[in-house]
């Protein structure tokens, strides 16, 4: 089983990102589960969402405590939330920031991958809604999802021009991160 924990703030689309990750995984034939962990449901409040992937049916219902990947949507959370808690040493910490990985002030043995998803979102969408860029960055950093699946789930969720713009944001982030 591969487990992802997303840290964001209410209104940043953490739940949507989890859902897109699950739907893209399903599109690739992986059993996928997306679970929001609703807290106070207020804009700006710290929120978590979880994604699990497996070759077999997933029955687990507990919160993800030992993630293989942690996605941080907003670095202002780092002051309040230990985003690395339980993160596997072999795992990936994907951070939305304009900083380089070596300049990110997080103490972890996991690999730190950075992407300026907010900037990519602003360039492509004109708004700082960074979840589709982070979807692309996750795929680029982990090779867990095919680019075809990313495009399929995004165009299903966002129709027409807005869908194409989101696909562009995903592709830009994928390309920036993919080694």
């Amino acid at each position, binding site marked *: 089983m591969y487990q992802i924990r997303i840290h964001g703030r209410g209104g940043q689309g953490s739940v949507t990102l*989890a*859902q897109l990750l*699950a*739907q893209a995984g*399903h599109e690739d034939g992986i*059993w*996928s*589960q*997306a*679970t*929001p962990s*609703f807290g106070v449901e207020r804009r700006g409040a710290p929120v978590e969402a979880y994604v699990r992937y497996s070759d*077999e*049916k*997933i*029955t*687990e*219902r*507990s*919160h993800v*405590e030992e993630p293989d990947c942690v996605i941080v949507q907003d670095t202002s959370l780092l002051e309040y939330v230990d985003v690395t808690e339980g993160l596997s040493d072999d795992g990936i910490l994907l951070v939305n920031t304009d900083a380089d990985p070596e300049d990110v002030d997080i103490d972890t043995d996991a690999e730190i991958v950075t992407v300026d998803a907010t900037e990519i979102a602003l360039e492509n969408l004109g708004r700082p809604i960074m979840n589709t860029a982070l979807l692309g960055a996750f795929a680029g950093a982990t090779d867990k999802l095919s680019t075809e699946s990313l495009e399929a789930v995004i165009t299903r969720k966002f129709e027409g021009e807005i869908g194409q713009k989101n696909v562009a944001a995903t592709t830009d982030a994928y390309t920036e991160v993919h080694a």
Partner: protein
Amino acid sequence: MAQADQQNPSDEQEVMKGTSAVAKGVMAANPDVVSAYPITPQTGVVEKLSELVADGKLDSEFIKVDSEFNAASTCIGASAAGARAFSATSSQGLKLMSEPLFTAAGMRLPIVMAVANRSLSAPLSIWADHTDAFAERDGGMLQFHAEDVQEAIDHVLLGFRVAEQVNLPALSNFDGFILTHVQEPANIPTEEEVSEFLPPREPEYTLDPSDPKTMGAYARPEHWTESRYEIQRAMMESREVWADAVEEFKDVFGRDYTEYGGMLDTYYADDADHIIVAMGSIAGTIRNVVDAYREDGEKVGMVRPRVFRPFPAPELRDALADAESVAVLTKEMSPGYESAFAGEIKGALYHAESQPPVKSYVLGMAGRDVKPEDIADIIEDVKTATPKMDFDESESWPQLRPELLKGGDA
């Protein structure tokens, strides 16, 4: 039964939110009337249904009302007029429906409801436990508990089928947030499949202005007892109707809920020394803990009542009687006594030839996360349970945080 056995890989699965998936299942059942009032975490079910009606995809009367009391009452009127009626609610909403639901049972109206289980105030909480469902235990409504999104869909279809045959309302429970807001693969039944499984409702009596009659009006002491007894008889008859329904469900949809006549789902319980009993989504996490114990060669198993009303007493007696110990994991309790679920299980074992020690564990209340370690700790604890436990040793609240209690301890 292994969960993997229940998958039919040839079927097309979709990943969508639990509430949307249930709404699509309801759509396939083609209700004549839907009436509901929004409440977290159920809202998504009726929101989706109202959207489907507005978009012309579902040919139902969607009746907007000012409260859950009115929603249930509207369903009563519709059902009495012969309609297939659906509603959904949670928590306080179910409390507000309680009075009309008891009435619906007495009037023998097969209204089916999805209940997204949530704790009851106070303190206010929007998260899952089974306090709301258990508070309706004695109304005369059939009750089922789903483990995953697929069952939440399927139990609504089974609910209509059985409710309409025995003329009782049904509450199809699925855990709030854990199952309402998860996205996971599920087969969405088509209307063709459902029409094969679920024929149009054929009510025995309907309200009809051209043939006036009265339903549920007034019974003097010389009549009322019989009407209540008929509910009990219908409940008992529903066991066989449910068993037939799960058989046919398997034929039509390929998903197999036929173990113990559809009353129980078991996991490595046959030869288990220590058995966990639980209902709802927690069973998924329990499976993984059972797997870990089995890998270490320890005989641990799980028994999950799928149906709570009628209570699967004979089946539980059969499934549990040979165990060395039984741990009941439950998300409700009856203040002043113990978990109602555990009490009923003990009652079911009273006439068994052997009575294993039964210890109840109140946990996962109001959405408190239940981790695999919590379940493993319970298994270790129940191994030491003895048949002659003192009453105050027979129930435990393993997730209690003593620092929050008055005086700092339990």
